């Protein structure tokens, strides 16, 4: 495959009002030379690097702190990954975990945008024995 072709995942944070359907339609309307596939978390875009980046830039403008993106190794609809072809998706556990935490990252981005200096978070301590005992009792009941 041409090395100038890039595949990108576009994620919508859970707190955003945007839907994958709206993102996919928006990308179609841009008229860039890219392939777009709607997914449960947002969309997958594939095409020449420049066109993909331009598309991402436009999509980001819709909700800058709630749209996230990363590149993907496998092309769109690759039979080894595409669920329509019963492909496996071993990386999905991570994508799901990170997608759930995007609302936290969003708060961080807002904070940085406003030029705020966040307070130092409390240090994580060890689990007190009393708490551990409580959990054990809850589980064993």
């Amino acid at each position, binding site marked *: *495959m041409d*090395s100038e072709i890039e*595949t990108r*995942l576009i*994620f919508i944070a859970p707190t955003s009002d945007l839907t994958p359907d709206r993102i996919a339609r928006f990308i179609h309307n841009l008229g860039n030379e890219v392939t777009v596939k709607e997914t449960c978390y947002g969309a997958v875009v594939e095409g020449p690097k420049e066109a993909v980046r331009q598309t991402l830039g436009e999509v980001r403008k819709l909700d800058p702190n709630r749209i*996230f*993106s*990363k*590149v*993907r*190794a*496998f*092309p769109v609809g*690759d039979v*080894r990954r595409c669920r329509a072809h019963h492909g496996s998706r*071993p*990386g999905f*556990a*991570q*994508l*799901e*975990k*990170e*997608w759930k*935490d*995007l609302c*936290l*990252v969003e*708060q*961080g*981005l807002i*904070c*940085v945008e406003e030029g*705020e*200096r*966040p*307070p*130092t*978070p*409390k240090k*994580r301590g060890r689990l007190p024995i009393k708490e551990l005992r409580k959990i054990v009792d809850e589980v064993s009941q």
Partner: protein
Amino acid sequence: MPPNSLILYDLVERFGHEPLSLMKALRERVTSNEIEAPPLNITPEDVKMGLKYAAIEVPSGIRGRMVVYGPLIDQADAAIFMEDAPYSFGCVGCQRTNELAKLLVRKRKVPILSLDYPSNEEEAKDMVYKVKEFLEGLK
């Protein structure tokens, strides 16, 4: 690290740097016709390349992964480590590979930012702020 993280990839790119990702490194492999079932298969050439990063007695799984991680480490100008992350965050693979990769990054003496995976809003704000400060300091 982990090199396949969405959050880290996005933040690094957002703050004006080029993230070195596992996805990009695997792209060539998964789109090349030479490998039968990528990324599970490696070529004989990969095995030799892996020796540059991991000794012969190191388990083959680690050496195989280092073939992909190693060139990324060689190219890196700086690194961000996400520590204490939940099990579903990062490559679903070998923790020993991650340890070795971190060691090799430290040996290169590039600037490193170590962060804890955020579990609440306060920690997330602190994380994003530190990432921004770190990346802006590199320019």
